[in-house]
């Protein structure tokens, strides 16, 4: 393809933007790419800018998978210097695509509460697992399921809503946990049975939780969410609650431990500032604040857990395929899932 045409448009657009004085791109900016759930209190970010003499330019790139795809697509001319939000489900893909800078940073030296493949430095972790609406089960006199297989039984027909693993990172994480626990073929048999039993599929977490979950007016009392969601329900409730209206349901094979990390982007600029940012994400202030902002547990071992997490017990067991399998078969699994569940 003749690049001449494109560079003509580039020049035109660049000129237009410069004339209008609208370009925000500044060589001194540290460009941070995050998923859209990234929340760090503004005063902390301002302090970081002051301490390090850089301006942060944070861009939110959508869901974790979508964000990584943007990074892969712009590999030749990266749109960020440092990236936060790649988790262990997407790490193999990021490593295979070679979008991360492989040199290590200081924070990588300290032993974290949950590991991630290098060069990703763990920042936080959480558990993707089933949540259920306590009131619905009490009112309808249905026993809470004991195993994942229960969900394929007639008694639990049309009760479960999951996110599409093709469009949602919790959806993908949940699919991985079933494959990790049962093995590929059995897992897809299970999904076929779920489909036959009236499984509901939503595009992303928001649609599943706010339009399909019975707690919020939908008709499905079991939803794929996080182990910390019940704690957030108490934290964000209208009235003071002594216990959450929902609970997590950490069935064997239905728990995926998600470890989110930060890393330098290959070909990025601002090396010293980028390394400082990695360290910043592991600083006690950020590690404390993000717990009730992003509803994840801190990766820095010495940091105390938020009080709200007394309603969010950590699951004792979790499943996942090996990193090598995720890297080799991840996208095939999603394609197979689409065939088995949607088509």
């Amino acid at each position, binding site marked *: *393809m003749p690049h001449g045409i*494109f560079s003509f*448009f*580039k020049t*035109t*657009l*660049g000129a*237009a*933007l410069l004339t209008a004085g*609208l*370009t*925000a*791109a500044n060589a001194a900016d540290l*460009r941070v790419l995050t998923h*859209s*759930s*990234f929340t760090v209190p503004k005063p902390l970010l301002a302090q970081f800018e002051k301490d390090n003499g850089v301006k942060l330019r944070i*861009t*939110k*790139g*959508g*869901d974790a998978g*979508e964000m990584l*795809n*943007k990074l892969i*697509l*712009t590999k030749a*001319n*990266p*749109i960020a210097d440092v990236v936060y939000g790649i988790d262990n489900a997407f790490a193999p893909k990021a490593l295979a695509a070679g979008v991360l800078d492989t040199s290590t940073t200081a924070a990588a030296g300290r032993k974290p509460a949950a590991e991630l493949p290098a060069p990703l430095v763990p920042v936080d972790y959480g558990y993707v697992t089933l949540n259920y609406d306590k009131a619905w089960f009490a009112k309808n006199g249905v026993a809470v399921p004991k195993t994942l297989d229960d969900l394929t039984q007639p008694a639990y027909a049309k009760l479960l809503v999951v996110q*599409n693993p*093709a*469009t949602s990172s919790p959806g993908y994480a949940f699919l991985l946990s079933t494959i990790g626990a049962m093995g590929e073929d059995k897992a897809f048999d299970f999904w076929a049975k779920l489909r036959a039993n009236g499984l509901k599929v*939503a*595009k992303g*977490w*928001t*649609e599943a*939780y*706010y*339009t399909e979950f*019975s707690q*919020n*007016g*939908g*008709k499905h009392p079991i939803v794929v969410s996080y182990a910390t*969601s019940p704690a*957030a*329900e108490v*934290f*964000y*409730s*209208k*009235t003071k609650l002594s216990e959450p209206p*929902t609970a997590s349901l950490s069935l064997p094979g239905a728990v995926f431990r998600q470890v989110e990390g930060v890393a330098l982007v290959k070909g990025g600029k601002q090396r010293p500032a980028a390394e400082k940012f990695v360290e910043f994400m592991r600083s006690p202030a950020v590690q404390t604040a993000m717990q009730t902002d992003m*509803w994840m547990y801190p990766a820095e071992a010495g940091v105390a857990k938020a009080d709200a997490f007394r309603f969010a017990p950590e699951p004792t067991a979790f499943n996942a395929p090996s990193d090598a399998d995720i890297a080799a078969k991840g*996208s095939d699994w999603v*394609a197979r899932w689409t065939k088995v569940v*949607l*088509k």
Partner: protein
Amino acid sequence: MAFETPRLKRPRPWAWDRWALAAVPLLFLAVVLVAPAVRLMVEGGSADLWAPWQDPYLRGRLLWSLAQAAMTCGLVLLIGLPMGWVLARLDFPGRSLLLRGLMLPFVVPTLVAAMGVLALMGPRGLLAQWGGPDLQGTPWLLLFGNLFFNLCVLVRAAVDALSQVSAARVAAARSLGATPWRAFWRVEWPAIAPWLASALCLVFLYCFSGFGLALVLGGQAYATAEVEIYTLVAHELQLGQASVLSVWMLLLTGAVALGYATVERRLATPARADGVLRRPARGVVLWSAVMATVGVWVLICAAPLIAIAHGAMFSGAYAWGVLREDDTLLALYNTVRFSLLALVLATVLGVAHALAARRVLWLRTLVFLPFIVSPVMVAFGLLLLYPEASGSFGVLVAAYALLAYPFVAKSVASRLDSLPAHYLEAARSLGASPWRCFWRVTLPLLAPALRRGMAFAAATAVGEFAVSLFLSRPEWATLTTLIYQHLGKPGAVNLGAAQVLACVLMGLALLAFVLIEWPGKEGDARA
């Protein structure tokens, strides 16, 4: 065009000034839309053009996209035309308020609207509470959502069109013994058909290439081809497959847009100075018609919004506290700022495009390009083509303007078609220069249409969320992104805050509408 007999020399289609006018929107489209989309397709490499039709899954998606758009068009015409007739022909208290109220759905973000629709027709919705069926998981939910968003497009077009019908011709038909129905069919219908065709075309394009609504209301089972493209590009990075699918979408919608532009040009007639006067709604029949119109409006347009307002009202003091947060003020400021900038850019582009596209069919068709090309293809293409501009303010405003400007162009173009030629001729024969003619004659005549287009564009910008497909930045959070942010966390307060913010957004959009359209009094195109 039998009755277009200008004594003045017709403007040559491709004089230099035309080229200069056309260059503005064409360059804009090339830089922010065509080049990025093409760049992404190049990245995807070659794929079999027939693949989407051979794969039963993708074929189903394409056919369902067509079917739901066509069904919506039928429903909208069936319900909207009688409503338009009542609003155009009858006078009753609250008429202009109702006309404005029709615009409300247009500015509600998709997810919020979907929540409203579910609050009506979902498992715990009003319909189910009154013993009706629960429509969740059926295609009806998506069709109702389409109807909610698109009814106003047709009703407004019908009102405008009916105001253009010549009173003398209707009166002549009646005095020659035609029944009201026959007069409508033989005199009014031919006059309003191009307007309705234009509106239906828009409705079709919206529904066919719409994607947020189909995702939430259609669920995965009734997702459209546009949804599939989004998934393929953003999540699976299958650029080749996505490109082929989007080429097919482009061909199908392009055919509709081209057909529409042809029809509209052929049917375009100069406006009548003697529009039919509205009569007061008197008598049982006319009053029932008014009540039915209000009733349909409440059922289709207002009910989902009332459901949200109701939710916000009972969401408690904590949720309302969101209004005092700094983030909300910032979002409000951003929404206003981006909308204003986008509106200025969209107006310049839209007017230039409309003026340049007179009598040039392919240019008229190009107005629809921003609706036709998949936004996700454009967004990822922009990233690939101008990585250094990603997340820059210019790209953001350009993206807003790209999605808003067709409204201005379309509205102005329709009005240009129906401009009475003799005003201009009179001005020219009295010695006015062409520029003076434009400034003193054409522009005042265009003003109501321009205001209409700008009002639509402003409403689009205020409620815009497609920009999040581009890279967004925390300091650029708008009301819509703030709503989605709250909906991204569990907890009753977050849901309540989202509903409160949705109410603020509706209020803001309504304000934009009132401010822009108010000088037009009745707001119709009869200047």
